[in-house]
């Protein structure tokens, strides 16, 4: 059998979601024996494009051509039939089954004599072949749950090979891998390349693209902004394409803040996710914590507040000119914390607005031996907060589920304003809120810091980080890799550090 060249073309793909133009007239061409890197920031359209290829969302217009045949991809099943495999970021596997069974999950070999039964020996034999082909030494008999994340990924790749895929899509495959595992994965990907597969490799990290890929495609705001051979383009140019030249508009207004430390965290460790974080938070400053998805931002916050277990690390709180070593749980008591996902851990969704607002400061409203709640005072202060932050709600007794996202978020802010904490931790404070509320929240943050609160601001929106922070820490792979202040707080600088360009 001769090795025939394969070619995948996605032409003029457009995809709209209600209110969002996810992809606009994007065309890409991928050849077998080549690794194509697909880059862009969160929300640039990378995942949507690959979901179209994986049959998860049908495109609104455009066509997909595989080896000069027009193919229809209406479901993941269609994609599988055309030999397209998707290695997801969140791996899909059956943890208590063996490696071999996972590899052949969709097509278990039957026993020759008794076709009702699965032939264990055949599965083992066939999966060993596939694993050998990938140059991996994973034992097909071991259970998935015994493997490391990197090994699980290789099993998933083996499954793609076993189903006879010719096109393999990797979605941010290295986000949870150690350096060693990363090297192993790269070896496997190169092996696939030599097997003449078409490979699409999605990543935030330019280092990986340069190391691994032959060609690149850059998406921004759903449009194709550049493509070509990796070898022909400088890293700086690619970064410029990713960010867009016109995006440097938001400027950091340099603000002088005190050097009085209020919180110090030393060597915080949690598994692979956080590998020794040191940070100090000063009084009255907005400290931006910037990093791409999967860099460990939310994990850092949950760990320092005792919501996730901390393996090691020390927390010092400076109060009344005294230093006190405290536990994460004690820190949580001192802080206000606006969480990343309102619905999961931010709201009491079927409770009225006032109970949502006062829930962080209940001790303040209880009195006497019996700890009776002074509900009138609660409602009064909820009403005050509603007026202060202009929360749009028919009344304080309306169930909070009836409010818009922005107003729900303002109610959560009120919860912490009510407590008046010295430290305020904001994880994606403007996620899913409209432009108006976004601005109001932005000026509220600045105002709070001016009044002396210390704010740790986590955001995946670089404009927000740049315009609000006094100081920015850049997090990558669970390590703080850079600290920027003053002039250094600009989009190009932060983005290049986060993408992996060394200073």
């Amino acid at each position, binding site marked *: 059998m001769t090795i025939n060249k394969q070619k995948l073309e996605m032409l003029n793909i457009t995809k709209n979601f*209600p*209110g969002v133009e996810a992809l606009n007239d994007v065309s890409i061409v991928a050849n077998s024996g080549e690794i194509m890197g697909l880059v862009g920031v969160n929300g640039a359209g990378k995942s949507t494009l690959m979901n179209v290829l994986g049959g998860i969302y049908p495109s609104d217009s455009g066509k997909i051509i595989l080896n000069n045949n027009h193919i229809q991809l209406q479901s993941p099943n269609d994609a599988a039939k055309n030999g397209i495999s998707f290695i997801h970021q969140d791996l899909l596997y059956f943890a208590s089954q063996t490696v071999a069974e996972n590899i052949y999950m969709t097509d278990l070999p039957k026993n020759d004599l008794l076709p009702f039964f699965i032939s264990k020996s055949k599965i083992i034999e066939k999966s060993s072949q596939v694993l050998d082909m990938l140059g991996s030494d994973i034992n097909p008999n071991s259970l998935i749950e015994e493997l490391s994340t990197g090994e699980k990924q290789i099993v998933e790749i083996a499954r793609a090979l076993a189903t006879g895929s010719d096109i393999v899509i990797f979605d941010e495959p290295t986000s949870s891998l150690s350096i060693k595992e990363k090297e192993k994965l790269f070896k496997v990907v190169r092996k696939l390349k030599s097997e003449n597969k078409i490979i699409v490799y999605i990543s935030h990290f330019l280092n990986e693209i340069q190391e691994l890929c032959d060609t690149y495609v850059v998406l921004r705001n759903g449009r194709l902004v550049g493509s070509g051979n990796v070898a022909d383009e400088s890293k700086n140019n690619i970064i410029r394409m990713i960010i867009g030249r016109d995006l440097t508009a938001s400027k950091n207004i340099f603000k002088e803040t005190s050097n009085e430390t209020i919180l110090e965290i030393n060597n915080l460790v949690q598994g692979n996710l956080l590998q020794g974080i040191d940070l100090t938070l000063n009084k009255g400053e907005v400290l931006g914590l910037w990093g791409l998805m999967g860099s460990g931002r939310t994990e850092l916050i949950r760990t320092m507040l005792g*919501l996730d277990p901390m393996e090691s690390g020390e927390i010092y709180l400076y109060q009344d000119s005294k230093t006190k070593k405290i536990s994460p749980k004690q820190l*949580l*008591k001192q802080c206000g*914390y606006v*969480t990343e996902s309102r619905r*999961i*851990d*931010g*709201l*009491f*969704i*079927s*409770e009225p607005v006032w*109970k949502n607002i006062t*829930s*962080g400061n*209940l*001790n303040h409203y*209880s009195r006497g031996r*019996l*700890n*009776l*709640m002074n509900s009138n005072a609660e409602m009064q202060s909820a009403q005050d907060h509603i007026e202060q932050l202009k929360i749009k709600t028919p009344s304080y007794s309306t169930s909070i589920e009836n409010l818009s996202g922005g107003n729900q978020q303002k109610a959560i802010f009120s*919860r912490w304003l009510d407590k008046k904490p010295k430290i305020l931790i904001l994880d994606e404070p403007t996620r899913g809120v409209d432009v108006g509320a976004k601005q109001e929240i932005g000026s509220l943050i600045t105002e709070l810091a001016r009044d002396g609160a210390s704010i740790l601001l986590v955001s995946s929106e670089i404009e927000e980080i740049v315009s609000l922070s006094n100081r920015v820490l850049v997090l990558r792979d669970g390590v703080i890799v850079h600290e920027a202040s003053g002039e250094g707080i600009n989009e190009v600088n932060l983005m290049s550090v986060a993408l992996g360009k060394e200073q």
Partner: protein
Amino acid sequence: MIDNIISTRFSFTKKIKRLISGNNLIIPISITIIAAIIFSLTVPNFSNIRNILNIFEQLGILGFLAVGMTFVMIAGGIDLSSYTVVSASAVVGATFMVATENVFLGCGLMMMVSVFFGTLNGVAIAYLRMIPFIVTLSTMVLAQGFAIWFTKAQSIYGLPDIFIEIFSGRLFNFIPVPAILILLVAIICSFILSMTLYGRWLYLTGENEKTAEVSNINIQFAKFTTYIISGLMAGITAIVLSAVVETSTTSMVRDVRLMDVIAATVIGGASLKGGSGSVIGTMFGLLFITMLGNVFNLLGVSPFLAMIIKGSVLVAVIGLDVLRTR
């Protein structure tokens, strides 16, 4: 935009949801009143004063367990064990009471044993993060086994007369003492749930454990204490029931009654997902369920057919719960 489409499409469900929402008492009170009217018009002897007293006496006895269940369910759990814990504590307390003629010791022991089982549930669920359903199911079997082992399956007779007289008496020759007791407990517990900081902790923990944790509420303490309260209620039931039936046995509360208690609590506005419910609602729910059982009795419905009907009522009620919390 997507939200808008969904909200118009499901506005009908939303209306139903609002109608049966756990926060209002309209449903439990109205169905109880409607049922009472229908029963008194159609079922002979139902509105007889002796029958009504009978209903309230039964309600008094199950009421404590239902109050305990209300606390547990508000904080997002369930307690299947309380009805066998009643037997386990009753036989231990009664044995010592008969042997020593000391009523205080006997009652004290009943409370201690039931609180012990409550602690067991509470530690396993709140601190070891085990699943309430499985933990309390195990405790249910454990308590039942313990009661039978402890008594060698014998009932305990010969309780002191004074003990029996206190609890089986009637105030002004009219109102049964258990009914007064349950009224008292219901008022205190209703107050705790609606007026105190602790009550608020329970509702918020049941509504959303994660948000409660971020809001600095000690969710472990909140959940733990609900099982202690449920245990306390089982202890009170053991005392009252032993006095009323003048004996302590290994099956003082039948398993069908557990179903009654859960159904009453859910009809009263509690959700299996936590965050809602009230003692007043539960009491009306329990009144409804007790009337239903009483009517079956008066009409001579086979107890097994009654079980089928009550089982169906419970499934229907839980179905409504799913609808309103969706």
